[in-house]
């Protein structure tokens, strides 16, 4: 939304997956319940990270933000590698094997829950952005930073707020992924470019765009894997990313040129 390109997004996802993993194995907390702990925790963490690390270190320049978050992702990934080794970890919950018949095919219950939750979060976010003062302030800062400052909006606070919200959503995504996914220190890397591609394809700052972009990417990934084979199939996402950046940088639903 604020055109912060956060390279550490994948690393934050990885951290959240580990947090969910340890909550389950050490505390016996179900991943879906862990949302209640992790979402606020990651909101606070993201807020502090943007306000007291990323903003002061990057001096507000956008390529610097990229470099700072790259540095952060190097630190987080390797700290995880040091602390938790490169072993792949999974959790075992009973309902991961429950399949629900949806007519054409059977889908694992956790994936169905993830879909429902994603739509719910999308709607909540849309409401937050359009109906609340905080949402209005975020949109104001993204459109006209100086103007927003003049009318009394605390721009630094809004940036941090928006980073915290993003981190909280990442934490929720981690809880949704955990029942059917695995955790390694490198797990986030695969998601970084996919996340950028989704947003760029949909149009930065557009919610419908992010949703549609996500669906288009899912379809492209599945089909390019099917048509080109497993190893060459990964190319689809990167090619789309390059094409969109070159020929339609505003994305499918973006407004600003």
């Amino acid at each position, binding site marked *: 939304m604020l055109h912060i390109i956060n390279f550490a997004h994948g690393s934050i996802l990885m951290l959240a997956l580990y947090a969910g993993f340890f909550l389950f194995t050490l505390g016996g907390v179900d991943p879906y319940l862990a949302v209640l702990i992790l979402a606020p925790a990651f909101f606070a963490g993201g807020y502090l990270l943007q306000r007291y690390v990323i903003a002061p270190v990057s001096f507000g320049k956008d390529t610097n933000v990229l470099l700072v978050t790259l540095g952060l992702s*190097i630190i987080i990934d390797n700290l995880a590698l040091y602390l938790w080794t490169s072993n792949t970890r999974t959790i075992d919950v009973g309902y991961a094997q429950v399949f629900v018949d949806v007519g054409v095919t059977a889908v694992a219950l956790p994936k169905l829950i993830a879909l429902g939750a994603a739509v719910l979060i999308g709607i909540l976010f849309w409401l937050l952005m359009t109906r609340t003062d905080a949402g209005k302030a975020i949109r104001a800062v993204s459109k006209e930073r100086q103007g927003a400052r003049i009318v009394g909006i605390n721009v630094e606070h809004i940036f941090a707020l928006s980073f915290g919200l993003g981190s909280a959503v990442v934490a929720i995504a981690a809880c949704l992924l955990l029942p059917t996914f695995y955790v390694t220190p490198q797990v986030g890397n695969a998601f970084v470019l996919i996340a950028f591609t989704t947003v760029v394809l949909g149009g930065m700052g557009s919610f419908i765009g992010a949703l549609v972009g996500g669906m288009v990417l899912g379809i492209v990934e599945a089909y390019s894997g099917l048509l080109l084979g497993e190893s*060459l199939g990964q190319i689809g996402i*990167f090619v789309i990313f390059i094409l969109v950046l070159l020929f339609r940088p505003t994305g499918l639903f973006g407004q600003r040129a």
Partner: protein
Amino acid sequence: MKKILLVIIVFFLVLPLFVESRFWLGFWTTTLFFALLGQSWNILGGYGGQVSFGHAVFFGTGAYVSAVLQVRLGLDAWTSAAIAVAAGALVGAFIGALSFRYGLRGSYFALVTLAFAEVFRVLANAWDFTGSGFGMLVPMKPGAANLQFADRSGFYYAILLLVVLAYALTWRVERSRFGAYLLAIRENEDAARALGINAFRIKLAAITLSGAMAAMAGVFYIQYYLFVDSHVGYGPAMSVNALLAPLIGGAGTVLGPLIGAVALGSLAELTSLLLGKEPGVNLLAFGVLLLVILRFLPNGLMGLLRGRS
């Protein structure tokens, strides 16, 4: 300045006479390798302000083209090396023409270079001609005709020669009209355009030169290690290596990448000495150093040296 340069060159020339162990010779060889790779990034990112997150695309092209020509087509090492450097320049010109023509700047340019590197990585990993998942292995045949050296100090002097050439070239660029245009574009591209600078052509020239230099590093890499696969060649780690040395040493200065490479190499040795050879510790220290430098020394270690004198 010239005296300092002379001292540095003499230091590196006589170094192998004093370092007995293979370990330290290897340390300085890899340090000089990163100094070369870093300088290639520096020309585009440091002087031109076009931050690349995918420099591995040029490095990997140099390594792969050289390996493929030698192994698959049976060309000699010298011809392969020359073609590989040309291929690096070509890939640079291709990516530059596309992304600069369509006006990608700042973080968008950075992301598109990263995506290009990933495309090349997937291709190299999928194509049997480039060894697919197994990578390319160049047979060991020591001899000057094969650009391989039985004595490790041969590789040391080879990379030293490449570094001296690359740094001399960068020094010339810095003092040329072309270099001045590059700096103008870095500081304010719109203003540079308004003054009549053809920003597209200047940036294109910079990325081509940068690609050729990174490919040169790739050529050295393949002759030295005799092996490349898609993760080493085109993986994000090499792109990160390319930008760390100049950013830490001082982007947009001739000696910055060398100072950065020495600092990073020493830091890596220091951390493994203090904390043991656990995986990830080196990179952890690199990440912290990067943040500290960005926060307190925006001009890198060179800024520290300049500030004193």
